[in-house]
């Protein structure tokens, strides 16, 4: 095992927070217009720079932070829950299923019914996926079973999404859905952010409250239960937490992959492999990585903007291969 220095929370969390702030400020400066900070801050409504900062860039980057927290946190929680470093909201099909829920909501025109309809669709989809994974792979899932279960769910869901696209009323609606599926946080308004934020917040709190249970779970299900945790109830709590925040996030941002796999994996040695500590650091780490990816997206192709989900997949795919390569002896 590589000897990475384990950092205490009081060092690691401020470090990640600082990185988050730096990335946040840099991200706000991206875009076709060079921001005049003085004008933007002094005349938030009257000046063009104020409008760009407060109504375009700020909602976008705040959404990046919220989605990043969601993906990092839920990845860490799922890995802890399944005691499996290869779990992640996208690999086990949760992200895709949430996307399907949102697509169906859009497709049947339900999105306009209430402000929370789209996040709700996403959350229902995410919940279905987590329950399916548990039913298919069982509580003591091996790596292989888990990935196969995720693959199967992803395959079914992809075909259903394709079906929805196939019968979409017009090419415009179709391209809308396709672009949305690629995963992006561009051109999201603060209304989009506000519709999803309450559910994400609820999901985050639910997941963070599972920390000690996940710690206990590292000694196995029976031991966790003997340490005073109602195993069945706690598992439900974690599942609902994942469904709440991933469902709501995907409903706004589309399918942004691999953050939930990569972030907990990179941070795990730094927190001494403790699942509870990993929750907090992965939340911040997810936000940092997503902001960084968003900066990269805007830098690489300022005109015809690259989708965020495309770039995370481009980085995450090879990373996943690398993980499988390193763990290949443990997989069989």
């Amino acid at each position: 095992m590589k000897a990475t220095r384990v950092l205490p929370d009081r060092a690691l969390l401020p470090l990640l927070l600082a990185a988050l702030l730096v990335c946040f400020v840099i991200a706000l400066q991206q875009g076709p217009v060079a921001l005049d900070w003085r004008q933007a801050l002094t005349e938030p409504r009257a000046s063009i720079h104020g409008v760009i900062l407060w109504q375009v860039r700020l909602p976008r980057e705040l959404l990046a932070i919220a989605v990043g927290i969601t993906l990092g946190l839920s990845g860490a929680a799922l890995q802890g829950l399944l005691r499996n470093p290869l779990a992640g909201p996208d690999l086990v099909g949760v992200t895709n299923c949430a996307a399907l829920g949102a697509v169906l909501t859009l497709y049947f025109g339900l999105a306009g019914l209430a402000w929370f309809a789209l996040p709700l669709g996403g959350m229902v989809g995410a919940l279905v996926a987590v329950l399916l994974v548990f039913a298919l792979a069982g509580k003591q899932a091996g790596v292989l079973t888990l990935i196969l279960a995720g693959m199967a769910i992803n395959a079914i869901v992809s075909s259903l999404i394709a079906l929805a696209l196939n019968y979409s009323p017009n090419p415009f609606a179709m391209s809308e859905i396709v672009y949305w599926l690629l995963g992006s946080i561009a051109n999201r308004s603060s209304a989009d952010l506000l519709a999803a934020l309450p559910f994400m917040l609820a999901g985050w709190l639910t997941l963070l409250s599972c920390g000690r249970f996940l710690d206990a779970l590292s000694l196995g299900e029976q031991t966790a239960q003997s340490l005073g945790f109602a195993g069945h109830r706690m598992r439900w709590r974690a599942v609902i937490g994942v469904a709440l925040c991933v469902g709501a996030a995907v409903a706004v941002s589309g399918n942004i992959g691999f953050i939930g796999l990569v972030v907990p994996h990179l941070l795990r040695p730094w927190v001494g492999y403790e699942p509870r500590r990993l929750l907090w650091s992965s939340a911040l780490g997810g936000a940092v990585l997503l902001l960084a990816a968003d900066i990269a997206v805007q830098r690489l192709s300022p005109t015809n903007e690259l989708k965020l989900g495309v770039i995370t997949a481009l980085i995450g795919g090879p990373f996943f291969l690398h993980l499988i390569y390193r763990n290949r002896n443990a997989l069989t």
Partner: protein
Amino acid sequence: MTDLLAADAVSVAIDERPILRDVGLHIRRGEFVGLIGPNGAGKTTLLKVLAGLQHADTGEVRFDGRPLPALAPRQLARRLAYLAQGAPAHWPLRVDKVVALGRLPHLEWWQRPGAADEAAIERALALAEVGHLRARTVTTLSGGERMRVLLARVFASEPELILADEPVAALDPYHQLHVMELLRDHAHRCGAVLAVLHDLNLAARFCDRLVLLDEGRVAAAGGVRQVLVNEQLRRVYGVEARINEDGAEYSVIPWRRAR
């Protein structure tokens, strides 16, 4: 004096196959009780039922006079600790962090571990003689070291009763003796221990009482010399044994198959 743990008429069936039938058992304070029996006799299931990890179809388990379902899980967890078979560790955690998990039943969700918890962890590390391993990673330890670390985790909870499922399986003789001593000392110091054992000699040497389980039933229970007799061993295990009685010492060597 009341029993610390008492089970009455416990029956469990899994997929309509009876695993435990009408099992009764009691453990008093200060006792080290060995639970023995051939493979598939229902020892692990019984231990789980006694720990409140599995529901009995019929019958009742009482801890300190109160039925298990009447006790809050965390309350029970402070007084009863369970050491799982094989005792897995899923992440390469540091030894002292693993031991610290034993304090979880004592912490409310808003509380951080305090001085009392630190002290309990230190005591547990010293008790199980794993203090020198504290900065090691649990997955890199040898089997004997790992079992002692997991025992330290149990000690850190400061329980009265320890239920241990095959605590000495796959350990070398030195570590077998060590773990048995640690369990016996715990029983004689403050609490009680019920351990699933396969080694009849260790059971004979260390346990105050034995419960012999056979096909889900209690075949015999009582002192070592009443339970470990040839007639019993032949009937339950299907082996002939050489039994040596030498004053206070009593040893059993399974010699040949009897059927």
